[in-house]
């Protein structure tokens, strides 16, 4: 643990060197391609420059030069800035910027530049032992791959959508219509599938040769691993547990997600944009998906995977995973805020040996603020929205469909709301009825 750090550096820095060299070679290829196919000398020169930078870095890293190490000050600054709140807000802001500037970002050269930037970030960060340990863990490798795949497909989809939007504006059919989508089963489909099968097999065999199965010790009921992490695809839900009650995050939210996804076909009234990529024609669907999937699902998985350490404490990308790190967690219930802070009285006590109804009444009285707020949120907001922002929706969808959609949207919005309540007011539960296992 202590003595191993230097050797880890040695081997990691060598690996980073090779990584840079590969990046350099790929950029040379990009330069050649941009020269021969696209005839864009400016880009060619730019990629050659990037290749030179990567090549130089690779050489330095292979020579174990300390110059390739990420500066400690940068690490400290990054760790000081990063927190669940900044990350979530930052992600939201990024999504907004990407959406607004989508026409710029889908330019291939811009995409390529962003990819290069991410490689540089990865290369620099890998020289940090903690980062290398977390990212290089055999379990986390698929997630790193997933990040890149997701980014690529989002970018590609957006690129096609932007192109189609442009075409639709011009009055020409979308790309998909123009090419016609019909292909022959043989050879087009079957042959391609066969090639994919062969390649996938080769990749899997190579992967299995290089990386061992990440098995750990036999499970011990009295010694659980610290942190105990769910499978990667559930880490988002596990992250939700930090903000919400187990019952809520573990049962209510997943059920609503499934129900909501099932309801989409019945809620969708937009007849445009079917069968081709477009943003302009399906703006509402696009934004809800981007926010719901990337922000509320993928980001939480990434936080759970890379940023949560022992005791489920938040660590910066380069922070030492110290099991003794203290993080102050103050939990306040809304009822406490209401009775104690605002009214300056004690929280009403529930008589212990009262009858069922009396007890229920007391509990409701205690939680009156939360209950009222929740009721207002779910009952008063939909008509209000229906008269203002979502008027056209209400008109076109009818009362039932509209109410269901708004309920689902509001339920989705409770997640960021709960997160913000926690960060800003340390409020854990709006309604807290532990007597009936109900906490929201």
């Amino acid at each position: 643990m202590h003595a191993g750090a230097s050797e880890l550096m040695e081997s990691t820095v060598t690996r980073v060197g090779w990584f840079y060299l590969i990046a350099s070679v790929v950029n040379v290829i990009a330069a050649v391609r941009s020269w021969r196919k696209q005839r864009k000398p400016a880009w060619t020169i730019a990629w050659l420059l990037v290749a030179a930078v990567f090549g130089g870095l690779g050489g330095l890293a292979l020579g174990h030069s300390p110059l390739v190490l990420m500066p400690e000050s940068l690490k400290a600054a990054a760790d000081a800035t990063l927190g669940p709140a900044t990350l979530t807000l930052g992600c939201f802001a990024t999504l907004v910027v990407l959406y607004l500037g989508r026409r710029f970002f889908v330019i291939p050269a811009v995409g390529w530049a962003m990819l290069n930037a991410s490689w540089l970030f990865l290369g620099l960060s890998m020289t940090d032992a903690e980062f290398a340990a977390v990212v290089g863990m055999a379990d986390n490798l698929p997630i790193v791959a997933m990040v890149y795949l997701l980014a690529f497909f989002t970018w590609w989809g957006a690129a096609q959508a932007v192109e189609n939007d442009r075409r639709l504006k011009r009055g020409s059919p979308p790309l998909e219509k123009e090419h016609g989508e019909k292909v022959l089963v043989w050879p087009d489909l079957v042959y391609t599938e066969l090639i994919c099968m062969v390649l996938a097999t080769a990749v899997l065999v190579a992967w299995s040769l290089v990386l061992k199965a990440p098995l750990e010790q036999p499970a011990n009921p009295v010694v659980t691993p610290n942190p105990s992490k769910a499978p990667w695809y559930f880490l988002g839900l596990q992250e939700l547990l930090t903000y919400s009650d187990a019952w809520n995050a573990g049962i209510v939210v997943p059920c609503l997600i499934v129900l909501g996804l099932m309801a989409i076909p019945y809620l969708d009234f937009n007849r445009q944009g079917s069968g081709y990529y477009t943003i302009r024609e399906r703006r509402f669907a696009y934004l809800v998906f981007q926010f719901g999937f990337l922000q509320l699902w993928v980001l939480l998985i990434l936080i759970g995977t890379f940023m949560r350490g022992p005791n489920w404490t938040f660590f910066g990308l380069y922070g030492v995973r110290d099991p003794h790190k203290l993080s102050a967690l103050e939990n306040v219930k809304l009822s406490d805020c209401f009775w104690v802070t605002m009214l300056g009285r004690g929280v009403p006590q529930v008589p212990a040996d009262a009858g069922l109804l009396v007890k229920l009444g007391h509990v409701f009285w205690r939680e009156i603020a939360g209950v009222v707020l929740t009721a207002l949120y779910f009952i008063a907001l939909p008509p209000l929205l229906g008269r203002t922002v979502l008027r056209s929706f209400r008109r076109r969808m009818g009362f039932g469909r509209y109410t269901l959609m708004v309920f689902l949207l509001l339920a989705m919005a409770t997640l960021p709301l709960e997160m913000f309540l926690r960060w800003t007011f340390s409020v854990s539960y709006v309604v807290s009825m532990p007597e009936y296992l109900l906490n929201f």
Partner: protein
Amino acid sequence: MRATEKTYYSIRRLHLWMAASSLALLAVTVWALIADHTRQWKQYQRTFQDRIQPWMTQARIAEEQGRESPDEEELGRLRQVLSRQQPSLGKRLLRLPLIDALGRPLAAEQIWLPELTIDYNFRRVARFDRCVTCHQGIDQAEPGRPREPALRPEEVLSVELTTAGRAPEAGENGAGQKTPPSLEGVYGLVLAEQGILDPSAVTIERVLPKTPAAEARLTAGDVILKINDQEPIDRAAAQRHLLEEAERGRAPTEGWSLQLEIRRGLPQPYSSHPRPDLFVGSMSPHPMSEFGCTICHEGQGSATEFKWASHTPNDPGQREQWRGQYGWFENSHWDFPMLPKRFAESRCLKCHHQVTDLEASRRWPDPPAEKLLAGYQLVRQSGCFGCHEIKGFDESGRSIGPDMRLEPSSQEAVRGVPPGTMRKVGPSLREVAGRLDAGFLDNWIGNPSAFRPETRMPRFFGLHEHLDGVSLAEAKRFEAVEIRAITEYLLSTSRPVELQAPPPEVTERPSAQRGKRLFEVQGCLACHKHRDFPRGQATQGADLSQLGAKYSSQAGAAWLASWIRDPTRHSPRTVMPSPLLTPIPLEAEYGDATSQIPNPKSEIRNPKSEIRMTDPAADIAAYLLEGRGWQPKARAPLNEGDLDELALLHLGKVYGEKLARRYLKEGIAESTADRVQGDAAELRGEMTVEKKLRYVGRRTIGKRGCYGCHDIPGFEDAQPIGPALTDWGRKQESLLAFEQIDEFVEPAVPAGAKQSGAARLAAAGTAAPSDAPDQGFFLDALLAHRREGFIWQKLRAPRSFDFRTAAEKDYNQWLTMGRFQLSDQQREAIITFVLGLVAEPPASAYVYRPDPREKAIVEGRKVLEKYACAQCHTLETERWTFEFDPAKFEDPPPVPDYDFLRPRVSPEQMTASLKTDNRGLGSAEVAGMPRVDAQGKLLIVDEDQDEQGRAVYQYSLALWEPAVIHGKVWTVGGASPLVCGPEIVEGRLAAGRVDVTKWGVRLTGIRPPVGGSLARLLYPVVLAEARASGRGPLEGEAWGWLPPPLVGEGAKVQPAWLHGFLLAPERIRPSSVLRMPQYNMSAEEAGKLVDYFAATSGVEFPYSSHARSRSGYLEEMERQRPHPEGTRLEQALKLLTASGTDCVKCHLLGDYRPGSGAGATLAPNLERVGRRIRPEYLRRWLANPKTVLPYTPMTVNFPPAGPPLEPEVFGGNATEQLDAIMDLLLNYDRYLGGRTSIRQLVPPAIGAAANRSEGKQ
């Protein structure tokens, strides 16, 4: 839409993609095959099968061929084996990738152990060990030598090769042609074309017998690394170099020699397990097929690659080497990492719960688990179990490990069955006020080693290396109070002492001069040390050099004398025996050196005479009280403010601060006293400083666990304070509080303002971290938060885990463990023992269950250890091994003797003794006592020098066991073999070489005796005293005045007698200088000892009887051999007392005592023989005493040859006379009974009445 021939994708490009991906798939498939083919274990197996096995067989063939008469059958068999082992085409085919999946000859081998389960938390699952997959030759022993591994582990040695000292001569081949000189001709060695593992290594293929190479003990397979410090480049260069050196040998001196550095054996995983007779071998107690590997070694048995098997490096150097060589890493995911070599013995405890069964024995003379035993002894002697429970049973009463619980302090306190048996190691403090004053106690408690540097008591106060600032000041203030408080508590609770008055007949005042002599010869040195007697090195008891400074008061001095008289009176549980000292008359010669030789007058004393009597106990006490030289530090005045503060800390925890303050100010009123419980009871009534001190003292004793070692009033029912060690070896490392230890020990502490722990440790006198392998290993373990590191640091600086956390805690919650004075080695031994406490016994079939005889030995050893019997008595004699040249070794002179005295020698023993090695030398092992001179030093029979001017000594050893040397039987009591060797320093052979061809014999090894150090210590002393008084005894006779060796004691004495003797020893030999003291031993313990001796001597036990005491035996003998003059016993008695047989010249018999004999020549009273001695032993003894006890002065009284003695008194030959004497001695009670008439004592009236009542019926 109609199908067209047009495709969406370009078919040509798809073809290219297909081709490329297929190639990729092919490439990864080939990669997979290569990865599989080059798997570590397959490479190991190929090397083992292709290179090592044929090599081994070839070497065996060469060895067989080199014999004088090779065994052709064996040779044929070996050749067949070799042809099977040679790599063949078929074998190669079968080892190709994929084909090798058939399972032979390459196969992952595993041992399936359904009984030896492994704990996977949710269930216990069968073990399967695949270790043999790589360690192929692990279970092979050398053919014919089960103790030697067939494939020796790798080692580098230096050997001396003698050259011929002349130019190498050309040889001649079969056709009569001259051939150039060869190594074979010059040295008798042949170099192999290729090395075993490394083809270019210069490897010896064959060594011819009786050549310089054989003389240098080179063997086939040795790799020559250096010749006279020069590295040979290759085989040819080595050959040239060796031949050149042979020629050069002519020049300077005769016998010029060559230094060769050689590498012998094979590296892991090829070499065999050491000591295959004990482990792994199929004939050993732990055969591999039944035990597997991981049950002892731990590690991941299912792994077939080095790094996954959880091998654990033994030191940082090895760790780095493994990292580079095997890609080793610390696998934290395997819960049972392999034990590093240094702790390999600890797992013996899993099955050997008695621990003493791991001691060296006749069958395994090399201790099987030396370090573990050392750890056990240290734990036993240091009293670790006083604070840390070591429980040997689980809830269901199943044995799970060694049981070292304290014995209960009272019958009521017995919890669990059976109760603990260990005694508290410290002295009882119940009457401490009667012997020690407050000044001494303060000093002693504060720092015991200041008064007694080697004390076993740990240091509890002044361990401040981990403290600084406020904590340090707090520690200093409160510790001063605590010391005072403990002293006050002990003194105030001490009970009054009842001294044992000196015997009434004593007339003389105590004399230190007499005391000194008595201290030396009365056996005190068996357990205690004193600076006046530097040769005594016993550590059983305390060093008594400065006792005068300890018992400086009048009362203390009186107590000491009383204690020596009868320790049990003062402490019923002490292990110190009562020395049974009786008053000694002050004679004219008392004052000179002979005084120690007991005088008959001390034996049979007339109390009415005017003899002036001295009290030996008072003399010894007077002598001991002279030892001073230590000055106590003056007591510092008590700071009452600190006392109040500390008392408040304790009291506030129970009663809250407010009430506590009131109690401390006013005391606890009697009216509310019944509400007060526990230690606060000390505060009842009016408040005084003493009461506060007593309260704090009591709390401190409870907090620091003083009662774990000492019997302290008020703590009879207190439980051990420390965490139990019962399963510490498996304790989860996450439960150990490492706290800030990293910063404390790591030399490179960031932010250099604070002194690093390393520097602190160094300043505190504890070894500082260094690059030493051991230190490095433990530091690594500590920083990696492994348990071996934790315990190491705990033993080194027990409180250092409080570093920086002390400031956060209340003073009373600081760590309290004291620091023991241990060397690095001792610490490691203790760690080995504690790591073995895993409370995880395997299936009951595997737990060691001794048979009754072994059990008796195991149990007996514990009693022997408890009472330190081996300090005085030799339990096993010394053993010497030597090699000899059969042509020059002299045979023993023939001795005429009785048939039944002749040793039984099996034909196998005889053949084995005739075996010679390839130098033509034989070897032998003999057991006995080396002859010593008057100074107690090894007797040098002769001394000479070899050519290099090195001294060669000749020693002699009196045999205690018959030996077979080169086909000749050497009997006990006969001639002693003379052995040459280099100097023997403190029982070890000094370095040096002795030329066997010249001297004929060479000592090669000495196994020291077990026990008897006191006897060896006193031998020169009593001899000198006897000489000074003008009585020069026979050689060795003085041994008879000292504690006798107990070798074969079980065969000598009758169990019932021994049992009685152990409980109430009587004086047997009038000539002995000291007598057996009376131990505070239970009848059960005495029984265990009796059984132990019977079991070790191989005689029947627990009961025995003999034919000669059966009823009817005497009548039968009378019928067979009638004696006209009287009964058989009468005649035997006449023979015994006749002048021709010398019996009564020395022996006492009944009320008879040889007239002129001085104490030293008096022999035991014969009337006890029948109760004491076993008949078989008696017979041998009478026939030839020296065959039983080589040093005895008793002579052969019934010579087997020649005419019988006193034929007119008792007819028949010597054997018959012997039998008659035996019958008399064994039936002496019956004989005497027959001489006494009871009838005359009974009044006639009663007799008549009895007759009448009979008549009525």
